[in-house]
C-alpha cells in the first residue's frame, strides 16, 4: 500500500493560535450592495447567492449605501446606539461585579451588540423572542429594566425567577422574551412551534430565535429547519457566527466547508448572510425576514457574521486558545464604533455626545446595580425563602414535594 493510497482524517485547525499574529486571510468581505435586496416574496431557490454573500449597509467610511439600506430615521439610530451602549455598559459593570464575587457567573456579549439590538428593533414588540444566553441586548431593547436583570443575576429577593436560574438565564413573559435554557439550541425548535401556533391560529405575530454557530451542530437546529420548512412557519432563525464556541473555532461546526446561511438551501428556506457588526444591515435583514414571514412565505435563516470580542463567560480565558489581539483586529470592526461613525457622518452625533452618553449609561447601570444589590447578593443574604424551591415544579404541589419541604424545614 502506497502512502498516497492511505486515507487521512482531516482535523480542522484555525489560522492562528496564541502567539501567532491574527490571520483573517480566509475572509472575503464584499462591499455593501454586492447583492441587491430581493423581493420578500421571492422563492427560496432564487436566493441562494445571498447565503454566500454578506448583506452590508455601512461601508468602510460609515456611509449607508445600497438597496439593503433600511434608511433608519435619526430617532431610531439614536435608540439603537443608546441600546447598544447600554448593553455594553451593562456587561462592563456585571463583569466587574462578578469579579467582586457577588455573581456566580456572567456572560458578556461584547462586540455582538448589533445582533440582538438590531434584530429586536426590527420586530414588533408583540413578536416572540427565543434567545440564547448572549442576547441581553434583546431584553434591554424590549424594555427590560437593568435593575430587574441584575436581581436575576444576583439570585436575590428581587429576582422574579425566585433564584431558580443561573445568572443570565432571564425570562420575561410580559416582554415576549422566552425563558432562556442552559441546554444549547432547544429554543430553536420551540420558536418554530410558537410560530406554527401563531399561524395555526391565524394570528399576525412572528417568532425569532438566536443560537451560536457552534450550536448549529445540535439536533434542534435540524428540527427547527425541518419543521419550519415543512410547515412554512413564520419564524426568523438567527445563527450568530461569532467565530468561537468556547475554545472551538467555527471550523468545528463546519464553517470551513460552507457558510452557516447556506444550511438553509437544502431545506428550501431563504438564507441570508449578514454583517453582524453593521446595525442597519442586521435591522434590514430582520425586517426583510419579518415581512417575508408575514406574507406567508415562511422562515428565514440569518447568519450574523460577527466576533466574540470578550471571553465566552467569566469562567473562560480566551488567551489560552486564540491570539490576544484577534478581537481588536476583527476586519468588520466594532458595532458601536461603526454606528457612531455613521451618525457622526450624517451630522447626527459627535464624539463629545458619545463620551457623555457613555458616562450617563455607566451611571444608569451603576445606580441599577445599587438598587439591585439592596435586595441582597447571592453569597450574602439572598433574602429568599428556601421552601419556595418546591414551588412551580408542578402547578399544584404533590404530596411527595410537600413532604420533602417539611423535611427541609424541620431541619433548619
Amino acid at each position, binding site marked *: 500500500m502506497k502512502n498516497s493510497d492511505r486515507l487521512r482524517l482531516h482535523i480542522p485547525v484555525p489560522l492562528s493560535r496564541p502567539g501567532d499574529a491574527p490571520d483573517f486571510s480566509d475572509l472575503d468581505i464584499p462591499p455593501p450592495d454586492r447583492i441587491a435586496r430581493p423581493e420578500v416574496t421571492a422563492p427560496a431557490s432564487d436566493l441562494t447567492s445571498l447565503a454566500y454573500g454578506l448583506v452590508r449597509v455601512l461601508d468602510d467610511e460609515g456611509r449607508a449605501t445600497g438597496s439593503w439600506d433600511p434608511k433608519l430615521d435619526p430617532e431610531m439610530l439614536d435608540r439603537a446606539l443608546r441600546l447598544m451602549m447600554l448593553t455594553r455598559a451593562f456587561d462592563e459593570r456585571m463583569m466587574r461585579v462578578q469579579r467582586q464575587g457577588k455573581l456566580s457567573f456572567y456572560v458578556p456579549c461584547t462586540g455582538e451588540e448589533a445582533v440582538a439590538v438590531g434584530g429586536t428593533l426590527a420586530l414588533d414588540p408583540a413578536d*416572540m423572542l427565543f434567545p440564547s444566553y448572549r442576547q441581553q441586548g434583546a431584553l434591554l431593547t424590549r424594555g427590560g429594566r437593568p435593575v430587574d436583570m441584575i436581581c436575576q443575576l444576583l439570585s436575590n429577593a428581587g429576582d422574579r425567577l425566585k433564584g431558580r436560574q443561573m445568572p443570565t438565564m432571564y*425570562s420575561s413573559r410580559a416582554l415576549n422574551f422566552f425563558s432562556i435554557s442552559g441546554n444549547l439550541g432547544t429554543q430553536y*425548535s420551540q420558536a418554530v*412551534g410558537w410560530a406554527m401556533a401563531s399561524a395555526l391560529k391565524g394570528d399576525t405575530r412572528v417568532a425569532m430565535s438566536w443560537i451560536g454557530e457552534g450550536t448549529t451542530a445540535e439536533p434542534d437546529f435540524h*428540527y427547527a429547519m425541518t419543521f419550519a420548512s415543512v410547515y412554512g412557519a413564520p419564524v426568523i432563525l438567527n445563527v450568530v457566527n461569532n467565530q468561537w464556541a468556547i475554545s472551538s473555532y467555527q471550523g468545528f461546526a463546519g464553517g470551513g466547508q460552507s457558510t452557516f446561511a447556506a444550511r438553509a438551501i437544502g431545506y428550501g428556506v431563504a438564507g441570508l448572510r449578514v454583517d453582524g457588526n453593521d446595525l442597519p444591515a442586521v435591522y434590514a435583514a430582520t425586517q426583510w425576514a419579518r415581512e417575508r414571514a408575514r406574507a406567508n412565505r415562511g422562515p428565514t435563516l440569518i447568519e450574523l457574521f460577527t466576533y466574540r470580542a470578550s471571553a465566552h463567560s467569566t469562567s473562560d480565558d480566551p488567551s489560552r486558545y486564540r491570539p490576544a489581539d484577534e478581537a481588536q483586529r476583527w476586519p468588520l470592526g466594532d458595532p458601536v464604533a461603526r454606528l457612531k461613525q455613521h451618525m457622526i457622518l450624517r451630522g447626527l452625533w459627535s464624539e463629545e455626545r458619545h463620551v457623555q452618553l457613555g458616562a450617563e449609561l455607566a451611571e444608569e447601570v451603576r445606580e441599577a446595580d445599587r438598587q439591585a444589590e439592596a435586595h441582597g447578593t447571592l453569597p450574602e443574604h439572598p433574602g429568599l425563602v428556601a421552601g419556595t424551591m418546591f414551588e412551580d415544579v408542578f402547578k399544584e404541589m404533590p404530596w411527595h414535594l410537600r413532604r420533602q419541604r417539611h423535611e427541609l424545614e424541620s431541619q433548619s
Partner: protein
Amino acid sequence: MVQALNSGLDVMLGRDPDVVLFGEDVGYFGGVFRVSDKLQAKHGINRVFDTPIAEGGIVGVAVGMGAYGLRPVVEVQFADYIYPAFDQIVSEAARLRYRSAGEFNAPLTIRTPYGGGIFGGQTHSQSPEGIFTHVAGLKTVIPSNPLDAKGLLISAIEDDDPVIFLEPKRLYNGPFDGRPDGPARSWQDHPMADVPDGYFKVPLGRAAVARGGKAVTVLAYGTMVHVALAAAEESGVDAEVVDLRSLLPLDIETVEASVKKTGRCIVVHEATRTCGYGAELCALVQEHCFYHLEAPVLRVTGWDTPYPHAFEWDYFPGPRRVAKALGDIMAS
C-alpha cells in the same frame, strides 16, 4: 381501548380549540395503532396532522406551542422511540414552569404505546416509565382499561403540566392476562370497557383497587394489572391488586393502607428490574410500612436485558411468575 382513547381525543378536540394533535402517521392515516382514526377528517388538518420523523422536533415544537397558549397532544409512535426527544422532555418541558417561576408552562400530553407482548423485539416492547418518574416536573400515567384510558387521557390533556401518557399496547384491542396461548379476548363485555361517550375525567394521582384481598398487596399498572389478577386466581392467594394508574404523582395513601392491611407486598412491572419504578415502590413501602411488613417486598419484573424477540414469554413477567411470588411471599 383504542376506541376509548380515540373518543377522549375527539372529545377534547371538540371542547377546546387550543388542543392540537400531531405525530408520525397520526394525521391522514390515523396512527399506526389507529388511535387517531378519522380525527383529521373530523377536526381539520390544522388540528390533527402528520409530522416529520423527529421525536425531538415534535416535542420541541410542542413546547413552543404550549408557550403560545396551545395544548398540544403528541404521539411518539413507540415508547422505544422516545429517546431522541429525551432532552426536550427532561431539560425543557419538565423544567419550564420551574425555571421561569411560572411565567411559562408546558401543558403537553405525550402519548406513546409501551410494553411487550406483540413480538416487537427490543425496539417495540420497552417500558421506560422509570426514567420519567425520576425527572422532577413530569407526571406519568398508565391506564389498564378503556374507562380509565379515556378518563385519564382527558385529565392529562387538561393538566397544565407535561404528562407522559403510556398506553399498554398489548391491551389496545382487548384485556390480556399474560397467557399467550389463551384465547384472544376483546374488551367487549369487560366491566371497565363500558365507556361514556362524552366528557368525563379520572383524576391523576389516584389508584384503584382492582381486586380486594387480605393476604398480600400486589402493586401493578398497565398490562400487569391483568396479569396480577390472573395470578391471584391461579395461586388462590387472597391478594389485593392495586392498579396504580398514576405513577407520578403516586397515590401513596391507597398503597400504604393496603400494605398496612396485608403486611406483604409484591411489585410487578414489565420494565427492567434495576432502578425500575418498582425500586421506588419497594423503597416507599418499606419507608412507610416497615413495621407492618412480614416479608421483604418482592419484585416480579422484566429481566435486566433488552427485550429478546424469541423469548418474549420468558421475558414477560407472566401470571406463573407472579403466582410463584405470591406463593413464596405467603410462605415467608
